[in-house]
């Protein structure tokens, strides 16, 4: 992989590894409880109750980046789960229950006390049911009623007017589900839930996301991006999974400082930058080199992915007198915001404009339905404003389907054309 350019990126990776190592240690030595949960769960509640939570998607990305996905996914198929089923959310399960689990990265995931998911699709409950049954762990699922109030420019309302934006009945319902989750967390951790503590945490999450926003603005405004997309992702994700913790806030601040200072000094991640590219969709975790493969040949630099930009727009909530309700508003529509019309297409269009994007790579995930939807709306919206689109049909974690050479060839041809415009 390309050399890391920012000290904060190295700190982020190391911080995350250290966090995981200490989690393993605590779980094995003192049987401390911990949870595995979907990326769109309210991590804040777990944080506030001091029950560490491992993000399922993050762990899948780690397994995939270590090139272990084919092994575990083959095992999954051998067990009778067919090849068309979702891999992003099931890879972590496979790596903990099938085959040689000791091969998993960093010693593997220990047995969790709790598994938790939000039901954005119809399959994830089944993945988690299977998983929970295997571990005999508690399972908490949050159901997901759909939004019907759909103002397209949601990000203009989500910080201050979230009560109106996300519909009261959905928010109240989510709060009631949170109460059930809190009762479990109280039982598991032996601690009492304290709303003031959650409020303070939510305030720190706001601060963290404000730092990310400043970094994002620096990227938008600098003539050439001061930080590559992959390094943005490493920094943002490490902090988001522990959002609101002192470490996460200071990590976000260090990242902001470094990006802003590089921008002020006009340091470019790729001095050869001629084309600014956006990546729409989750990452290609098994082939991160793809994102730097066209810098030399085409001056094509990936400057945008959802991970950094979604921090401020998706997470900031002002007016925290009822912190559970505010947290509900952060959880209740995440999937719509990132994957469904009108919210995903309108937001990505806005991002393309503010980041002066020349071309977009749009991932249509194979075999992961909710994240596969909405991509045509995104592609058409971008094309209609003159941004050429390269469609990538691939899975986020399943390297078995990825022809790295062919993809590079096809992408090069596409970029040749973009460069000629």
């Amino acid at each position, binding site marked *: 992989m390309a050399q890391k350019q920012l000290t904060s990126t190295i700190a982020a990776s190391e911080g995350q590894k250290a966090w995981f190592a200490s989690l393993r240690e605590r779980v094995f030595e003192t049987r401390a409880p911990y949870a595995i949960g979907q990326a769109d769960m309210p991590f804040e509640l777990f944080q506030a109750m001091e029950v560490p939570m491992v993000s399922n998607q993050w762990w899948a990305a780690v397994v995939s980046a270590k090139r272990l996905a084919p092994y575990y996914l083959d095992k999954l198929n051998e067990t009778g789960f067919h090849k068309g089923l979702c891999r992003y959310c099931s890879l972590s399960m496979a790596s903990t229950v099938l085959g040689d689990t000791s091969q998993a990265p960093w010693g593997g995931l220990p047995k969790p006390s709790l598994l938790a998911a939000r039901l954005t699709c*119809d399959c994830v409950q089944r993945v988690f*049911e299977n998983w929970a049954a295997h571990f005999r762990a508690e399972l908490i699922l949050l159901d997901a009623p759909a939004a019907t109030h759909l103002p397209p420019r949601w990000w203009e309302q989500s910080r201050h007017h979230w009560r109106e934006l996300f519909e009261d009945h959905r928010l109240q319902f989510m709060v009631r589900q949170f109460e059930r989750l809190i009762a479990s967390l109280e039982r598991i951790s032996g601690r009492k839930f304290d709303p003031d503590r959650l409020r303070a945490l939510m305030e720190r999450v706001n601060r963290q996301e404000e730092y990310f926003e400043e970094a994002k603005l620096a990227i938008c405004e600098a003539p050439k991006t001061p930080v590559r997309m992959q390094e943005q992702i490493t920094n943002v994700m490490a902090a988001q999974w522990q959002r609101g913790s002192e470490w996460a806030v200071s990590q976000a601040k260090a990242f902001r400082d470094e990006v802003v200072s590089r921008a002020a000094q006009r340091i470019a991640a790729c001095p050869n930058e001629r084309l600014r590219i956006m990546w729409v969709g989750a990452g290609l975790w098994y082939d991160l080199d793809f994102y730097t493969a066209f810098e030399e040949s085409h001056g094509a630099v990936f400057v945008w992915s959802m991970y950094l930009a979604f921090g401020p727009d998706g997470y900031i909530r002002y007016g925290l007198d009822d912190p559970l309700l505010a947290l509900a508003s952060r959880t209740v529509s995440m999937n719509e915001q990132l994957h469904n019309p009108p919210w995903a297409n309108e937001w990505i269009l806005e991002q393309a404009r503010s980041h002066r994007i020349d071309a977009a790579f749009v991932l249509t995930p194979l075999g992961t339905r909710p994240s596969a939807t909405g991509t045509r709306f995104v592609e058409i919206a971008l094309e209609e404003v003159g941004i050429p689109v390269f469609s990538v049909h691939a899975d986020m974690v399943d390297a078995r389907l990825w022809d790295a050479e062919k993809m590079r060839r096809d992408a090069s041809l596409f970029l040749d054309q973009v460069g000629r415009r």
Partner: protein
Amino acid sequence: MRKDRIAGITSNTVPWEILRAAGYTPLLLEDEAGPTPHADRWMEDVFDRRFRVIFDRLCAGAWNHLDAVVIPRTSEQEHKLYLYLREIARTQPASAIPELYFYNLLHTRTPESYDYGLERTRQMVRDFDASEDELRAAIVESNRARGRVRDILQKRREGRLEGSAALEWIRGFYSEDRGVFADRAPDQLKGMNEQVATHRPHILIKGAPLKDASLHHLVEEAGGYVVAEDDWRGSRAAGDTDVCLNKDPVTAIFEKYFYDEVSPRVHPVVHRDAWYQREIERGHLDGVLFYVPLEDDVLGWDYPAQLAYLASRSIPSVLVRENVREHDPPLAEFVGSLHRK
């Protein structure tokens, strides 16, 4: 009761009685032949053909006999269908998409989902302006049709009605006026007294939603008798219970759709599998055909456990991935290996 307006519904979890009480004739929106250019432009290929057709015809204005379209939350594809249609209505001014209504019914069996769904059902009754009397009349009509569906299923269990014929007949429960469906059935049932299945093995079909009776036909041509299918278009159309007439009609309607309708979002698994396990325990099955195509992204997660359950009861099974004739030989072989108990 006025019945002069037509409401398209996308599945079994739209409360028929509320629409009927509001003066609509609800009709299930079905697949139809022909190209789907609008779906090809806007929809990823993860959508099932039926939803692609619905999207396409609505965008094209081809189904202008519909006054409204009602979509429930009980599958992710329908949720997305709703969002896509809303977006086309917003951004393509020339499109003539009928009025859309979304019914936020959840199928996790938790107290919160119960309360939420009941409140959403009350809201729907208010939105459609249905009176209590009209609701009661609609319940009576719909329950009558449910009774006839059970009669059809009973004939089949007695071995007097082919599974494919039963499935096609039960379509009427969703695609016809329910009153007319109920009125016609007794006469048609009366003549069916001949045994058609004396020595043929009784087979249950389990798996992905069935689009039509073609899989049934394959089984029947191979000599099998499809006695049931775990599918809302077939054995589970009427459910276990009627809509209760002894309580507040809105609660009764909601409870029917919450507790007694099939959807991929039913949780936990004990409720999802209860009907299937009960059928197996009844001891009338000679074999089970699992239909789990590779496009499926849901049932495949349940299949290994369902298979294990079946094996523990020593009932043979076959797995069919594609519902086409090329796969007839293994299917025929399987059916041929079974013996009627």
